[in-house]
């Protein structure tokens, strides 16, 4: 198992390197420089700034410097907020994005898994129908459409919830639900399909032939097998939540990493853009690694020995 983790971490490093290189190159293709503002700066000032930030050095040197610094935790300085480092800026946004992501993730599981289970256990009943409709509809409606409709219903019409901001628990409800809708739908769908499949298996019949109660058959025999595919998709779902949160953050004016990213793009803030993309790539890869390890723990047939 240890060797497997090591290999994955090495691969992670390689991927991050590649991601950073591609991003770095792409950014240098963006027309206009980082100093384009409303008012044009004098060429002398631009030149000084470039020297200060090492932008006059050749491409490869810039890149290697960047990677070296990044490995030490220094992701450079923000070009827009010149007195703040990128790491610090991301640091302010990270807990917010993470909180939102985790809450949405928990919501998705809490809604999706029971719904899928109930649908599978009572096939062709009302709840099955509801679950299927729910998962089809919410799997196709993008989060931001849902977010907007929620805002209309709960803020504009009912005046129950605030439209934006972060800090009060009421401000978390709509963004969390908008974000959670799609993963919840997927989770419900997969849980249902998986349960239906497991319930048909021979070993469930054996358990029943042993006279065990339905409760034990469900909890000990059925669920443990049925949830394996759910865990498999949990990783990409969480990754999706972290990456996809950016648009929800924009709608609800939540100061998370996603919003920072968009602002950075508009401001041509190279440092911030690089930093956020790397952060996302890293987060996604780590999550997938954790999920893969957990998968081995849950399914004894796949122990990487």
């Amino acid at each position, binding site marked *: 198992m240890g060797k497997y983790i090591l290999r994955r971490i090495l691969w992670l490093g390689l*991927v991050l390197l590649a991601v950073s290189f591609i*991003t770095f190159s792409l950014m240098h293709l963006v027309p206009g420089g980082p100093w384009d503002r409303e008012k044009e700066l004098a060429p002398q000032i631009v030149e000084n700034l470039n020297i200060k930030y090492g932008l006059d050095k050749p491409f490869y040197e810039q890149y290697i410097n960047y990677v070296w610094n990044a490995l030490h935790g220094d992701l450079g300085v923000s070009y827009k907020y010149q007195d703040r480092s990128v790491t610090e800026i991301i640091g302010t946004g990270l807990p917010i994005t993470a909180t939102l992501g985790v809450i949405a993730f928990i919501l998705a599981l809490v809604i999706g898994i029971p719904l899928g289970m109930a649908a599978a256990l009572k096939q062709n009943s009302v709840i099955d129908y509801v679950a299927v409709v729910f998962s089809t509809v919410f799997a*196709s*409606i993008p989060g*931001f459409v849902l977010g907007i*409709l929620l805002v209309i219903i709960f803020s504009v*019409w009912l005046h129950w919830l605030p439209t934006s901001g972060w800090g009060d628990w009421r401000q978390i409800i709509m963004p969390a639900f908008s974000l959670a809708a799609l993963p919840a739908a997927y989770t419900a769908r997969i849980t249902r399909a998986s349960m239906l499949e497991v319930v048909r298996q021979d070993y469930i019949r054996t358990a029943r032939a042993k006279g065990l109660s339905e409760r034990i058959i469900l909890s000990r025999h059925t669920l443990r097998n049925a949830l394996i595919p759910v865990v498999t998709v949990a990783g990409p779902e969480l990754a999706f939540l972290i990456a996809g949160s950016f648009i929800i953050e924009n709608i609800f004016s939540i100061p998370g990493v996603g919003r920072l990213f*968009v602002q950075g793009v508009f401001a041509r803030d190279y440092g911030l853009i690089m930093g956020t993309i790397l952060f996302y790539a890293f987060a996604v890869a780590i999550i997938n690694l954790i999920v893969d390890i957990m998968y081995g723990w849950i399914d004894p047939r796949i122990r990487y020995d």
Partner: protein
Amino acid sequence: MFNLFYRAKKEVTEPETSSRQHHTLWGDAWVRLRRNKLAVLGGSIILLLALAAIFAPLYLKYDFATQNYDAILVGPSTEHLLGTDELGRDVFSRLIYGARTSLAVGLFTQLVVLMVGLPIGAIAAAAGGRVDNLLMRFVDIMYAFPDILLIILLRAIFGGSIFMIFLAIGLVAWVGIARLVRGQILSVKQRDFVAAARAMGGSGAYVTLRHLLPNSLGPIIVAITFNIPRAIFAEAALSYIGIGVRPPTPSWGTMIADGNNVIYAAPYLVIFPAIAIAILMLSFTFLGDGLRDALDPRLRR
């Protein structure tokens, strides 16, 4: 052989019904697709919207860009079916013209996806070995990118017209198709290898391509159909943030962004495009589900 018997028996004992067995994959799939009510619904909506969008100038009273300061923020009425926005523009026509944008983005991005993804996947599968390894590692790296963010970045780089949007979205979305094509060709490669070995040497690639198409086209079509709503969403998201299509070209995403400013006064400005996006995406999803079931060779009788 069995089909002949079956048909003959039906003709003798029953009047012919429309549910005849079809010999070809496509004929059979078409029948099955037609029976799937959701898929038919989705497909009809898409068709309707497409026709409405194409023939828009013929029947729409108002243009999508004409501003009318005498009729600002008018709610839905007989004059303006869905009301007007903050600049007096007719919402209904903006919605219809916006459909053009969405549908165009949905479709043309897939062209880019196919032009990039298909060859890469095919080459990886056909060449095998180190080339395959290299290409797939590259695909894995592309997968590690959070796609929306990359799209935004590419968009910032390319700037410009809607064609650049096709490019930006397409250049991120090709990875799925590449993997799919590679998988399909690899599986066909296994199967036909024996037959090909028996055939007089002959260009293996040519034979594979001729047998490849009927079987693997199915999953590719389904994948593309599911890709389209994702592209539509990407465009709407880009426009919502402000780096999508340039005004005055209407886009549902822009409409939502603009409408957000007056959301308390005129929520309908946001509701209509939001629902439009949802319905269009749902329609493609239903169609995709239907296609997937219809083209599934395992379900053939």
